[in-house]
């Protein structure tokens, strides 16, 4: 008889079922409602142009969201060094572009961010440090180094073809950058749901000690999660740098909170062990659609935070309530 624990798990099946599906249906329903509301609000909402806009605005953050989902699933809490790794990607690709060409520069940018992510991974996975404060500290360091590298000045790109390529349209409709983003989402989803690393990530998030005792390299799995956010943020920074043809150290500010908002609204729990990349994608889409509607309604940029804050509270409160009534707190 251990310390008082909630009632034994054998609750009635239907409640378990409801909480099992409740969380799944909530998001698509929310998105549907937003689409309908959007259409009612402005006739320009349901146009190909506008929806493509929403997808473009989502792409840069979306790539980071995929990485952040792995951090959440492995119970890594959050990666606050995202602004730094995004900046590293953006600054390096434009900084080195003239000397070694855009593609090699892009690779160097992503690699540098991957190294930063790897260091985070080592500190948190192997040394077992607290993820929040560690990524906070490493973020300030990496951002500082990135600025020292470019001498604290704005970096300008000189390859407008690359910019045209990324922002160009395939079959006249879908911008290339959106395709890249969707590809990252699909690959991310498959890795998390179908690969060994993905299965291990869920296991580590759900019960780290049992997973370790099942011959799973727990430390390595946790480290990889942070390596992924670092690499993907770097990649997103590179894409951003190329699309804008200019990069400054503060290019990634606020992206870590936007990514966390999307993952949380998507229903991926901070406690680890559950949630998928598609949930997070759904969460991001939901937030972006709402933001788009607010813009179309003329709501100024800053006050939109009211809706985002309420959205996070709503999504998590419902998830917690469902989970607790399902008896599996």
């Amino acid at each position: 008889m251990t310390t008082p624990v909630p009632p034994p798990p054998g609750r009635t099946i239907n409640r378990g079922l409801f909480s099992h599906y409740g969380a799944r249906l909530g998001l698509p329903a929310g998105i549907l409602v937003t689409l309908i509301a959007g259409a009612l609000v402005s006739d320009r909402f349901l146009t190909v142009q506008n929806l493509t806009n929403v997808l473009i605005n989502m792409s840069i953050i979306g790539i980071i969201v995929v990485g952040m989902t792995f951090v959440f699933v492995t119970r890594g809490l959050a990666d606050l060094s995202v602004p730094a790794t995004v900046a590293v990607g953006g600054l390096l690709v434009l900084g080195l572009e003239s000397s070694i060409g855009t593609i090699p520069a892009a690779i160097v940018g992503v690699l540098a961010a991957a190294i930063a992510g790897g260091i985070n991974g080592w500190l948190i996975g192997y040394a077992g440090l607290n993820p929040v404060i560690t990524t906070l500290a490493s973020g300030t360091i990496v951002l500082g180094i990135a600025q020292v590298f470019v001498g604290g000045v704005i970096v300008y790109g000189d390859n407008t073809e690359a910019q045209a390529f990324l922002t160009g349209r395939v079959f006249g409709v879908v911008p290339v950058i959106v395709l890249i983003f969707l590809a990252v989402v699909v690959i991310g989803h498959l890795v998390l749901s179908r690969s060994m690393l993905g299965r291990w990530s869920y296991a580590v998030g759900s019960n780290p000690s049992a997973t370790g005792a099942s011959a799973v390299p727990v430390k390595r799995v946790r480290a990889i999660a942070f390596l992924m956010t670092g690499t993907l943020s770097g990649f997103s920074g590179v894409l951003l740098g190329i699309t804008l043809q200019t990069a400054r150290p503060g290019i990634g500010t606020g992206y870590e909170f936007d990514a966390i908002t999307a993952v949380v609204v998507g229903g991926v729990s901070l406690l680890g062990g559950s949630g998928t990349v598609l949930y997070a994608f759904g969460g991001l889409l939901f937030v972006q659609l709402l933001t788009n509607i607010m813009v179309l309604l003329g709501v100024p940029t800053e006050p939109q935070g009211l809706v985002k804050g309420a959205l996070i509270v709503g999504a998590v409160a419902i998830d917690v309530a469902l989970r607790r009534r399902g008896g599996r707190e």
Partner: protein
Amino acid sequence: MNARRNIFTSDAFHGLVRNRVVIILAATLIIGATFVPGFLEFRTASLGLDRMATLGLVAIGLTVVLIAGQLDLSGGAILALSGIATIGLQAELGQIPAAFVGLGVGIAAGAINGFLVVVLRINSLVATLASMLFFRALAHLITESRPVSGIDPFFGLAVSRPIGGTFTGRTLIFFVLIILLHLWLTRSVAGRQLFAVGSNPASAEASGIRSRAYLFGAFVFSGTMAGVAGVIQSLSVNTGSPVFGENIVLIAIAAVVIGGTRLEGGRGSALGTLGGLLTIAALTTAMEYQSVPSYVQAIVTGVILLLLILLDRTVSGSQRRDVTLAALWRRARSSRSSRITERTLHHEK
């Protein structure tokens, strides 16, 4: 393996880590004194402390929240809101009543955070991220993204001018509050029970402590402190602006953690936070005197923070020795040596 054990478990090393803040602070002051002329002059110290006061007030609130095992990201947004209330309402209500309304805003915001975490049971990182976005947007909405100005710039000077050549008003307010926090954490029943709530909520509950009340109180306290910081900050510049306090919380968390408070809860001290704040203030002052670029300053602060977390981990990795100076003294006196250092039940979470 054995070599590593005895270096890191020797009392000297433990003593060092336990009092690391004092050591890092001393090192910073030594560096500052050698490189920066007039660094140790009273005037520089008074200015450095004044700059730290607003950050310090937010850090005081965060210390309690961290010891309770939670996080509060919304301090900066609450600071902005309180400032706007304090200045914006001066015309109608007069300066003093408006300041109290500003304080009330802090308390209310803290209560909202408490409600989200304790009643809705939302994880505090996510809950205060949401409230941060919410309060910041509210600040912009109320002021339509424009700063509000007070009726009399001289009124605020009392707060930000050194009183009789010594410290400024807000530095004194900060010192009084951090000393009170120290006494509360070490001497009061509620303070000691906060450690119980932070380190083991179930055990606290089983001993008749209402953990949820403590958590709620911790967030109200943190909100109140952010409110006090907002009132004082806005009075000293006679302006309330929706963009105030944007990155104050992350620096405050760094200061509190440098001071030895752990994010996992159950451990921390007001003196540690004071040490962390003084270290950051000394660092900023020393480096600004050398017009060291802001991004290099960020690297130095980041490295120190990381060093301390790593140091703290190596110590708590092995069995946690009771290495306060008092314990060392007591142990030497009673010269009790227990060979078997059996692995304790309470591994580092």
